[in-house]
């Protein structure tokens, strides 16, 4: 087979496969845009002549998806911000200070990353039950409980990543800042933090996605407060044994997928480099 032909052949296969891979997503958006009678047709067609936003309107109004979208955003953004602040402080302590048990703490950070967090649903449920008695906003049925657990799950990796970035900032910079009369606090937030923050984009995106996608903990903690449900939970509630509003369900799925898709496209290069780097080291 001549080389040009064989490459053309491979490219044709590639395009067909890419089409198959993308098809479920195409079907999701298509179904969300179809008029209702076309969605529940026994003869579904892979196109529509009359696209409409009706399903999105239904998802946002009848199913109050807007509310759940806002809930999911609040949880994910709170996790990202808190995790940035807390892991920055911890990473600074672990790189810039020498103290006893520093090595022990580092080892613990590694070990804790290997715990399958799914196994912790039962004890965490009871922890959140106790938290509710002390601080209701952070206990069962409230968004705070989800922020807390996802913060805990994202911290070990975030601290681990940040350590490298903090260590890369020369100590001389700190000494210079001190000579200029900057307090340690000012140095920390006005010099060090801006320097390391960009390196955290990939980590932040990962913790955002984990919190955004989480179904298990939302399902476990938000038991009887429908107004505090997050997107994945709300979507699952839509699915009823017999009468499914597939148009609205697919509209909801679309709304849920778009932010993650955008994030992925933005950070994909860093993500791939990060994965390859993690694998190599």
């Amino acid at each position, binding site marked *: 087979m001549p080389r040009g032909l064989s490459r053309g052949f491979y*490219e044709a*296969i*590639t*395009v067909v*496969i*890419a089409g198959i*891979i*993308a098809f*479920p*997503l195409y*079907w999701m958006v298509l*179904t969300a845009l179809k008029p209702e009678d076309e*969605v529940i047709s026994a*003869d*579904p067609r892979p196109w529509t002549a009359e696209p409409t936003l009706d399903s999105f309107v239904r998802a946002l109004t009848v199913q109050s998806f807007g509310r759940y979208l806002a809930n999911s955003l609040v949880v994910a953004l709170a996790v990202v911000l808190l995790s940035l602040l*807390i892991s920055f*402080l911890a990473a600074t*302590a672990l*790189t810039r*200070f*020498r*103290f*006893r048990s520093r090595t022990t*703490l580092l080892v613990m950070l590694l070990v*804790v990353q*290997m*715990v*399958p967090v*799914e196994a*912790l*649903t*039962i*004890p965490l449920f009871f*922890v959140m039950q106790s938290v509710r008695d002390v601080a209701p906003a952070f206990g069962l049925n409230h968004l705070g409980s989800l922020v*807390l657990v996802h913060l*805990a799950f994202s*911290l070990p990796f975030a*601290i681990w990543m940040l350590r490298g970035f903090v260590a890369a900032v020369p*100590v001389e910079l700190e000494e210079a800042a001190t000579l200029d009369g900057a307090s340690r606090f000012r140095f920390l937030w006005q010099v060090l933090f801006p320097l390391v923050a960009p390196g955290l984009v990939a980590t932040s995106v990962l913790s955002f*996605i984990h919190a955004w*996608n989480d*179904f*298990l903990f939302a399902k476990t903690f938000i038991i009887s407060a429908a107004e505090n449900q997050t*997107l*994945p939970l709300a*979507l*699952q509630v839509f*699915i009823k044994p017999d009468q499914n509003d*597939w148009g609205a369900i*697919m509209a909801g*799925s679309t709304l*849920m*997928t778009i932010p*993650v*898709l955008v994030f992925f496209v933005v950070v*994909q290069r860093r993500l*791939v480099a990060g*994965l*390859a780097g993690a*694998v190599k080291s």
Partner: protein
Amino acid sequence: MTHGVTRRAGRGEGRTAYAYLAPALLVLVGLMGYPIYQLVLISLFDYGQEQVSGGAPLTFLGLDNYATLLADRQFWSVLGQTVAFAAFCVVGTLLVGTALAVLATKVRTWARMVLFLAALGAWSTPAVAGSTIWLFLFDANFGFVNEVLGTTGFSWMFGKWTAFGVVAAEVIWCSFPFVMVTLYAGIKAIPGEVLEAAALDGASTWRTTRSVVLPLLRPLLIVVTIQSIIWDFKVFTQIYVMTSGGGIAGRNLVLNVYAYQQAFAASEYGLGAAIGVVMTLLLLLVTLGYLRALRRSGEEL
């Protein structure tokens, strides 16, 4: 490691360090350390609805919950199912991911971009959204798959094995991109001269792939295999959403969903916790194997 480390050591320094570490330690001890301890503790008690509400005293059972599990036929069948399901997903993910990574090296940039963009879409789809999309694609009456196959009315999620098959297809769909992207980066890192030498020696594409590329990719393959095992062994969302909580009469249960149902549906928290401990130990074994394999392949590099 010592680069960038301030060498001033003193009591004051230590105190400041702990002040900086305090928020992180508080969160991690409270929401990771303590729950791990609690998980083990709960698994040693008869802990049901009555004990939770304080209506009945706590009874220490020792390892009785574990004995109950080991004598329970359903536990063994769920464990077997979990292993088989995970194995199927892992093999499928690796085959698809590796094949497409190799394919990506054979085409021009535009075709590769098309493939990667599609894969990125599958990768980034949240598990719940992906599950609902696939559920709708395979819907008995309105699903596109039945329309294409001419089997309208056939219920995929009713049969035990067809249901597992559809869930596995969804899991493979959203997890092969990680394998593909990682292995593609790995293949790209192989020096061109190595492949040219193989081509000059008259090796076919298949032969080069099998005898040159795959051995060089071994360390990466180990990493993606173990990663996939860990992910697929603890699948929860896809099974829960697509089979409505574990299938008819629980025949599509996997370990993670089983533990959840024992605890939160049957209020057998002690038993659920014991399943959680077993799952953690099994994954720990895999992780240990992972670390050993990493160290060994590191020596070869």
